[in-house]
């Protein structure tokens, strides 16, 4: 297990480094003048030169890359002062330390992701199992149709309707907003409820369909038939034999989805006026704000890689046939 984790972690570091390098060099390969962002409207060539020097943009791109990446580990010194590790530099557009912004935005993304995932995983898998258990009945047809509809919907559509109906119309729920769970758990929950539910509608469809088909497949397997023949109860066969087998691919997909969501649920954030990493990613792209863009990308990329490692490790527990060594 330890060897597995070590090997995968090293691989993950290489992947993250590769992606960071590609992002960094691509940024400079495209026509952009980051100093203009800091320079303002009444900008002069002299001012641009000063900014380029202050931001280190006058150095070769590989050197800049090295400074950026090493700064994450060791911290960096800028003209405005020392930036302690983990230093992702200062934003080109608002001159704020990027790490502070990431720390501020990440809890929102974390809340959206974990809460949404909890809902869509339990409800999605539950519906899928129900449909599989009652295959061919009206229950199966009903939930299958429902998931088809869910699959066809988009967050910006369902989100706006949910706001109009449940917040503005019926006043059942609060306007979506992020409140730190440490300050007010109730407000945190009520503020996140609509984003969770709307995000879930889209994902539930996938998970229920996937669970249903996996369950049906598993229920037709020889070992399940044997278990039934041995006289095990229907419940035991369903949960211990079929469900366990069905979970492996679902966990894989879940790992990828979770990782992507950690990178920022962009449309969800815009629909509900929330400030997470997704919105930060969009603004950093439009403002050619390389330090912020790199930071968001590194956080997202790391989340995806870590989620994949966790999923792979989880495999061993779910499926004893998988050996990690």
């Amino acid at each position, binding site marked *: 297990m330890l060897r597995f984790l070590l090997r995968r972690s090293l691989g993950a570091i290489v992947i993250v480094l590769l992606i960071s390098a590609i992002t960094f060099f691509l940024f400079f390969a495209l026509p952009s003048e980051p100093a203009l962002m800091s*320079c*303002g*409207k*009444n*900008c*002069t060539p*002299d*001012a641009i030169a*000063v900014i380029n020097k202050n931001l280190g943009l006058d150095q070769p791109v590989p050197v800049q890359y090295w400074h950026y990446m090493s700064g994450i580990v060791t911290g960096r010194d800028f003209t*405005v002062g020392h930036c302690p590790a983990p230093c992702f530099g200062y934003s080109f557009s*608002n*001159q*704020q330390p990027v790490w502070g*912004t990431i720390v*501020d*935005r990440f809890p929102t993304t974390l809340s959206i992701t974990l809460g949404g995932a909890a809902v869509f995983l339990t409800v999605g898998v539950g519906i899928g199992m129900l449909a599989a258990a009652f295959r061919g009945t009206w229950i199966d047809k009903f939930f299958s149709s429902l998931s088809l509809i869910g699959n066809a919907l988009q967050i910006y559509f369902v989100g*706006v309707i949910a*706001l*109009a109906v449940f*917040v*503005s*119309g019926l*006043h059942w729920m*609060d*306007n979506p907003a992020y409140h730190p769970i440490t300050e007010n758990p109730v407000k945190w929950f009520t503020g996140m409820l609509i984003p969770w539910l709307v995000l879930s509608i889209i994902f539930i469809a996938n998970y229920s369909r996937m669970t249903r088909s996996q369950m049906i497949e598993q229920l037709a397997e020889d070992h399940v038939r044997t278990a039934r023949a041995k006289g095990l109860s229907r419940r035991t066969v369903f949960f211990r034999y079929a469900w366990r087998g069905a979970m492996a691919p679902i966990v894989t997909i879940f790992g990828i989805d979770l990782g992507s969501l950690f990178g920022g649920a962009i449309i969800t*954030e*815009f629909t509900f*006026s*929330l*400030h997470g990493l997704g*919105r*930060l990613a969009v*603004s950093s792209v439009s403002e050619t704000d390389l330090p912020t863009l790199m930071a968001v990308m590194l956080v997202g990329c790391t989340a995806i890689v870590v989620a994949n490692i966790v999923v792979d490790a989880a495999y061993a527990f779910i499926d004893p046939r998988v050996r990690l060594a």
Partner: protein
Amino acid sequence: MTSATMFLRRRARLSAAALAAGALVLSACSSGGGGGGDGDKQSQGPGEDKTTSANYSIGTKADSAGPAPEVSGAKKGGTVGVLQRDAFNHLDPGQIYYSDVLTNQMLYNRTLTSYKVDDKGRVKVVGDLATDAGTASDGGKTWKFTLKDGLKFEDGSPITSKDVRWGIERLYAPFETDGPLYIPQWLSGDGNAFRKALPEGPYDGKHLPASVLDTPDDKTVIFHFAKPHADTPFATAMPNIGPVKAEKDTKQKYDNAPFSSGPYKVADYKVGKSLTLVRNEHWDPKTDPVRHQYPDKFEISFGHQFADSTRRFLADQGADKNAMSFSNAVAPEMTEKVLGQSDTKARRFVEIQPYVDYISFNMDRLGDVRVRKALALAMPNGQIVQQMGGATAGLLATNYLSPAMDGYRPTDPFGKKKSPAGDPEKAKQLLTEAGKVGQEIVYAYANTDVQQKVAVVVTQALERAGFKVQKKEVDSNTWRTAIAEVKNQFDIYRTSWGADWPVSSTVVPPLFDGRQIADGAQNYSHLNNSKIDAEIDRISAIPDVKQAAPEWQKLADRILTDEVAGVPVFYNRQFSLWGSNLGGVKYHPVYGTADPTGAFVK
């Protein structure tokens, strides 16, 4: 003249119009007035439907004395929520130019002069920190301001003339690049040349000589300009002509933590996300003729699309009852719903902003004035307004100057009110006389949804009049640069303009002075007529802005009628809505936004 910045100041408004791209909305602008029913009735913007705008004046010493007149029914306490779409780009008063941050800074920043807006939308330029709007001498080249007693920063320390000097001198520092630069340029030289007078600002211990900026005692600030500037009281109302305490000046970092001189101070600022302003206990209402301090707090949050803020104001529930927005407009797709919901009547306005949209004619390529006249006659202003979002987004324009400008007169040389869809017959007749029927017109526009729709109606109208239109879509990120190139290969293109203060000296010279033709400059039509230039000089030298105002209008009309450098299309409008539990929200005619300085929680 930092004219390029005006474009930027307009950006928020333009985005609003861009959002209107898919606008269903509203009845046609058939009557020239916009035709938006209730929207029109609500519009009592400066100058609109009046023969002459008389809404601007220079206030007296008595007008400049605090406190500001009580707002009827006002109560103290509560928290006002502010829903904004775009995050503020600056808090440092030295860097502020956009209308949203201009509005915001009124809450924590005071300036030498300021705008006092009464219940009827009339504006007086009054002394804010100063006891009056300034005293001119030496033919308008020297301006003296005396500070009031009892002025304090948020730490209770007194505001002196040295703090005002510091606030102005720091504009010379290389990092101060985003704000308006009228005063530094008038003091020390045009363009960026002024920076040479104090290359590091006041930070290396150097100051401007007393012959330029004098502070002989703690109460007196004297400007010595190279030329007369009659509109100095307006220029000193810009947000960066105020006090900055040297010990609290953190240079670039000041942008996130400005030191307050106004009724509120920054309590918490999360860049790009939220800003909380709380009462500044050291602000003395007796010194302030403009601002109030009714709510305990302003909680400003960013990232609210127009649809989101409009939905919240319409639903009017919970904390949203106490919420407003400085610059978010009503979402175009929700306009009818807002107008149709009677409980919104007391909590909305539709007002004219000081921003005008034009179609400029490239006079280097369109040499024949008859062709330009035909273009002006054929232009379907009314239909363009519809594409931009209808009556609540814009009011059909008939001449170059906005009704929000002092001295505005509703002249209409091309009969736009009578023929909002254009007059193709008359245009064709002119083209025939010129022997130019079938002339090809290269029409450039940004490739945004809304401009593509506008292009369709413009093309149809021009082709009805006998032109052959060649449409040129330009990438929206580069089109401003493209049209501002003197040697551009286009005949006509959409341009826009917003005045920094309601005096047309901030409009006519940058747009029509032949000496200002340059790449990136705003004489988009390349009008180059020495007689016009001479007239610009003559009017600029008039020492009284009130006397100059009608002269600017006459000159603008002369340019429109005789030179036809372009055709005005529409005057921008701000359609605002807010929560039912707020009182005292009013329109700020100079900033074109909802003014929070008198707002209170009922």
